[in-house]
């Protein structure tokens, strides 16, 4: 039998080791840069041009990651995970470069303040993104479902139909479940979750509804209790879907903001660069 020729084998490595190695490299580079900046300042050379150009280069490089994602088929530009590592550590290094650039003082002009604010927003949103992309996946994995974001509304609608059908089954025998459905569950199944939930999803509504369904048991016959148990399952499934929607959605919104602000930052930074060169004569 032809033995498939595997092109790549997984390398033996640990994330923790990679983290330590990359952090050390970043710190060494920052240390070297601080020595250069110190030496320039001691020699009465304006180090802000050095740090400014370096910062601009870093920001352009960081922004290029999005471009890299679009060109998936060229081998020579490196894999996305390699770029991601560079993106993280170059991004973290820019905090120090930015500090050197503004000489660790708050900028005093309105334009500079805008630029600094934009930079910090983009950089801090990047830090948040790092946190979110490392924490959210495990939270999502803990759920039973693994839906694709774009299909979540479809699954939500399907659950709503299932819930309605279940309750209709019991209408002839009792109106307890029907009333409960119209008063409490209809809104849960048929409407999207509140903005507050999307911002900070919690299991409060889920717990509340399940408790209320269980409390109805004493008014139900055995076969109706079976329906109420199935309803409980549907509530759990719907809540899991909502949780997915909230967390996956937050990751998407975060990326949209992070990338969108990056373009604004690039434009303002280029303007700043032009202005700095236009007015640098007086400073020399």
């Amino acid at each position, binding site marked *: 039998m032809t*033995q*498939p020729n595997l092109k*790549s084998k997984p390398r033996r490595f640990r994330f923790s080791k990679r983290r330590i190695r990359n952090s050390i490299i970043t710190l060494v580079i920052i240390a070297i840069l601080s020595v250069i900046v110190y030496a320039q300042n001691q020699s009465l050379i304006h180090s802000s041009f050095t740090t400014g150009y370096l910062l601009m280069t870093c920001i352009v490089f960081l922004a290029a990651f999005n471009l890299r994602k679009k060109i998936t*088929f*060229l*081998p020579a530009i490196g894999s996305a*995970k390699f770029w991601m590592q560079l993106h993280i550590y170059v991004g973290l290094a820019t905090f120090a470069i930015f500090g050197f650039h503004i000489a660790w003082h708050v900028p005093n002009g309105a334009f500079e303040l805008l630029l600094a604010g934009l930079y910090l927003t983009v950089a801090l949103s990047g830090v948040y993104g790092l946190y979110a992309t490392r924490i959210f*996946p*495990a939270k999502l994995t803990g759920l039973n479902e693994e839906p*694709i974001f774009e299909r979540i509304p479809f699954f939500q609608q399907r659950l709503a139909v299932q819930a309605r059908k279940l309750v209709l089954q019991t209408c002839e025998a009792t109106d307890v479940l029907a009333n409960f459905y119209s008063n409490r569950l209809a809104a849960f199944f048929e409407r999207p979750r509140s903005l507050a939930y999307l911002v900070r999803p919690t299991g409060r509504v889920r717990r509340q509804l399940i408790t209320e369904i269980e409390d109805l048991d004493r008014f139900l016959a055995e076969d109706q209790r079976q329906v109420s148990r199935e309803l409980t399952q549907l509530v759990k499934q719907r809540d899991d879907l909502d949780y997915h929607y909230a967390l996956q959605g937050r990751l998407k919104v975060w990326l949209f903001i992070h990338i969108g602000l990056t373009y604004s930052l690039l434009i303002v930074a280029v303007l700043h660069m032009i202005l700095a060169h236009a007015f640098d004569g007086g400073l020399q």
Partner: protein
Amino acid sequence: MSDQEVAALQKIEPFASMTPDAFSKAIPLHGVLQNDCRLLDLKKGDIIVREGDYGSSAFLILEGEALVSLQSLPAEVLGRDTGRKKGWLAAVSQLWRNSTGVETRNYDANRSEVSKIQDVGSREDETGTHIFLHDIPAVIPVGKSVALGAGEIFGEISALTRTPRSATVVANAPTRLLEIRWQGFRELMKRHEALRTHVENLYRENSLRAHLREIPVLKGLSHDTIEKLSELTIFESFGDFQWNRKFTSTKKKDILDRILSEPTIAQQGEYVDGLILIRNGFARLSREHGDGHQTIAYLGKGETFGLRELVHNWQTGEQRPWLLSLRAVGYVDILRIPTLAFESLVLPNIPKPKLPAPLPSLDPKQRQKHQRRAERQESMDKGLLEFLVEKRFINGTQTMMIDLDRCTRCDDCVRACASTHDNNPRFKRQGDTYDHWMVTNACMHCLDPVCMIGCPTGAIARDQESGSVTINDKTCIGCATCSNSCPYNNIQMVEINDDSGLPIVDIDTGKPINKATKCDLCVDQLGGPACQRACPHDALVRIDLTAPDDITIWSKR
């Protein structure tokens, strides 16, 4: 086949010399011929089997002549995807040249490539689609072939061992063939000594010696020793060759029932009767644990079982039984070197340092001492191992696995796949999960590619260099044989459209044309699988699961 045809067959060799009484009542000779065989009437030039195809049947020439090509035929003639890599410019141009429609095909633009396939044509009859060579000598030069005549059998080794056909065979005249399915052929071999000897000798002559030399423990043995071993080696098969057909229903069974229903190759606690070499397929190593069986590992092609027990018994004179059970997952072909032969021919010729350590002592005190000294081997998570074996993912050589604890569900992998396949993704980021591992619905490029059996045009084939299984879109006729055979549902049938988005229809029937599509490992792209390269979070990998080493390393990052 009709009773008359069966009766006629029973008058010719090798069936004439078979004794009907030698067959069981449940599967009589008449039944084998009627249910496991079919007659094929071919015209001159019809391709019977292609080099590299996987098949499940052998052929007996009843009338006419078949030509076995001694040289490999061009990929276009065999219906294969030529798999040419895109250049840099072509790769970059995908950014703006990819279609905006779904499953768009433009065969007019590829006319120059299609014209290269002018050596072959196709025709249909009641037995299916036949691809034929217009001019045999133009494709298979005189002197580069061997003619087979009436009464000769071919294709049996490939059918019995699930290995690719070693040569292309073409009908050289109007030819009548008897196609015998592997089940029937195995039954015939079991009941007919001459046929069994013929096939076993063929295998001994062609493959066995090379196979034995590939086994690490037998490397370095002299030519004579290998010769003697090959004479004494026993061939055995376990399980169902067409496991994929029962796979869906098997999955629903209770795990204990599933394990117990797997044919036992070696039973824990029983006499060690030889060294077992896995020739094809996969076997589960399990240990009795409580009322059930715990999977310890799985063995694939080329791996051995029983060496430690054999060495221990030979060195100490004890008779320790099998420590674990070995069961067939799906189907397994094994070679068994009997204990006596192994002890007399192999063990004295292996230097002592190369032999495995003796088994732990049965004395509890000695055992503790041994355990302290023994190095702990890195092993896979037991649950993950059970999951991979249960779902038969161990068949995949390029399985797509996602670590859900790192996957942000950004779908960059799917977008990358789409961008390299004319905006049509070739996998779904969905699939079976265990803990935080997902095996996605992407072609795994299986070691045992059941999808490749029965393709009438040879459109689905394994690339000899990369090992990836690809479908040639131009020669695929949309019969869905591969899609129906894939036990993992990783081949999708799609309706194709023209540039304006309208379905391309068959001129004769007016029905939309279907094509089989699946992951091709970005065989035509410069950088290899785009999905893996596009994942920024190190969450996705294409991994070889046929041996547990890679997944053990990857899962312990």
